[in-house]
């Protein structure tokens, strides 16, 4: 498979149902590629957490378990990093409008920590709107930074 301009090879490009089973499927697919690159146990755990949280956001909050909507998972690998893209078909959201989960008044809220954890577990994180609707999360984890 050809490399892109960042020296990445796309290993996975699949559409997943909007179910919790897809969370497990995505985690396994990403960790297989991460192991091939050479990530070790703690980093594999971090990558797995980030993927699970992103998938739960896509399935539960984005697609709202709709059987008519899919989650797109793409995984790209290079010699020193892993790129994961997870896209849903939901209504989208404005990151700046979400309550800060670290604010004193929000510490006892039951939900709202998923994006915080994702950002803590990967080296690069980005959100973009998809056309015609939905959100795509891009996560990058570097081998060198991780060790």
């Amino acid at each position, binding site marked *: 498979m050809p490399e892109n301009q960042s020296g990445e090879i796309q290993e996975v490009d699949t559409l997943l149902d909007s179910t*919790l089973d897809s*969370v497990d499927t995505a985690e396994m697919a990403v960790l297989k590629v991460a192991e091939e690159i050479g990530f070790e146990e703690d980093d594999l*755990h971090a990558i797995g*957490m980030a993927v*699970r*949280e992103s998938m*739960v956001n896509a399935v*539960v909050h984005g697609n709202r378990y709709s059987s008519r909507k899919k989650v797109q998972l793409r995984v790209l690998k290079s010699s020193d990093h892993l790129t994961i893209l997870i896209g849903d078909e939901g209504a989208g959201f404005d990151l700046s409008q979400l309550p800060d*989960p*670290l604010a004193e008044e929000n*510490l*006892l*809220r*039951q*939900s709202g*920590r*998923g994006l*915080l*954890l994702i950002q*803590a577990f990967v080296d690069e994180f980005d959100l973009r709107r998809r056309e015609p609707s939905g959100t795509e999360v891009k996560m990058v984890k570097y081998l060198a930074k991780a060790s």
Partner: protein
Amino acid sequence: MSVKLTTRQVGDVTVIDAAGRITLGEGASAFRDVIRDLAAKGDKKILLNLSEVNYIDSSGIGEMVSGFTTVTNHGGQLKLLGLSKRVKDLLQITKLYTVFEVFDDEAAAVRSFT
């Protein structure tokens, strides 16, 4: 494996021994049910032993926070015991170490209840 929860009494403290994963779905809801049942029957000193829990996601953290609120609102206390490094890291990232009292030693945890 989802979470397995068993309860035991140490004096007037109810210890919940959790093992496995506390994640969205069965794990988190089982955890919620146990805490609510204990609070409803009047248990006010609850120690959650997480030493055999190897994985918690944001939903599991949310259930721990919800459990803390439920028990507190019933006039009780919920404390944590035996956190792995990964679970401690989660509490640091989420600033919840400022909310929960955390112990490594069960006897010390039991003695801490007032």
